[in-house]
């Protein structure tokens, strides 16, 4: 019955293949456009605790929607990433982080739905 060994070998190889190929065809969970850029733009990438599905991505977009100078938001639920294009003349990554990290009151209880685990400028 030496062929039995093939089963765990195939399982391990195919799972490895799935993880290796996963990054090759990333599709955003949410793509949201806030407005059109009128000046120079910059890109910042956040890893956000709380961005883990399409619903929470929409909630995240709602939390930062009032920040001036935002152009677009792209989220990836698997990696909890939020990539934001913004106009540096109008806002900054600090402002954006402050907007989504703020607490929200629901039925008398304060919630913090999102917090930044990582932040890095792109480009």
């Amino acid at each position, binding site marked *: 019955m030496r062929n039995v060994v093939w089963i765990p070998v*195939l399982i391990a190889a195919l799972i490895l293949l799935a993880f290796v190929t996963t990054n090759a065809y990333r599709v955003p*969970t949410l793509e949201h456009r806030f407005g059109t850029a009128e000046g120079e733009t910059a890109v910042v990438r956040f890893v956000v605790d709380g961005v883990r*599905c399409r619903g929470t991505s929409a909630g995240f977009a709602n939390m930062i929607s009032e920040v001036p100078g935002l152009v677009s938001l792209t989220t990836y639920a698997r990696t909890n990433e939020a990539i934001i294009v913004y106009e540096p003349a109008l806002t900054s990554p600090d402002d954006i982080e402050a907007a989504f990290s703020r607490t929200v009151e629901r039925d008398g209880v304060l919630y913090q739905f999102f917090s930044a685990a990582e932040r890095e400028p792109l480009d």
Partner: protein
Amino acid sequence: MKVLRAIVQFVFLAGVITLLVRGLMGGTPHDCETYCPFGGLAALYPLARHNIYTCRLTELNVALLVSTLLLGLTAKKSFCSWVCPFGTVQEWLGRAGRSMWGRWLHLPTSLDRYLIFLRYVVLVAILTLTWTVWRGDLGFRAYDPYYIIFSWNGHGTMPWSVWVAVGFLAAAVVTPFFWCRYFCPLGAVLDPVGRCGALRLKRSEERCNLCGDCDDVCPHRIPVSELDQVTARNCTNCLECASACDRDALTLTWFGK
């Protein structure tokens, strides 16, 4: 054989329990759903139509679905008896039942003959509802015992969901692999690919004395002693039949050669 399969089963079950514990402790946003290949199927239509993932589904679910199908083509439905944590739980409960009753208890053949097609109905219903009425939301979470148990009645479940899970677990003690045999939609997807799986059991006519031990131990009611090669759609390559054979009449072969 049995030890090797038990080790692999334990690894996957331990993995999903680790995810559950870490999730309950707030340590990870990932849970059993993150690694569910069936999620890849639920994701396909909105992905093809609108190039978006719905709910919590990601490219990892799709990649794992492809891997599971490839595993089906090479090693039949080994996913069910070697990988699936809920399959492992069902198997252990079935074994407990078997030790209580002294044999596998099966539903009457007249009933089983029709119920076995129920999983295709479940598959069609879940995909249709997910892609239309639930608008991409994973509404079947409330009825999915795998999700209910390994997410600890998590997001999307209902107060009564735990009773659905308890019901399926209790049924597994009485009828082996009750969920897998009659309800599992992923099992329904794997049926056609598993049927043509390359790694399959072959029975040696010279060695076999038709004692029927292989038929008795098969939890999936496959009449192994009547077959030259086991190509039945329900065979999960659990190899219980081969382990039970004193004459080594059953061997795992590539394409039955």
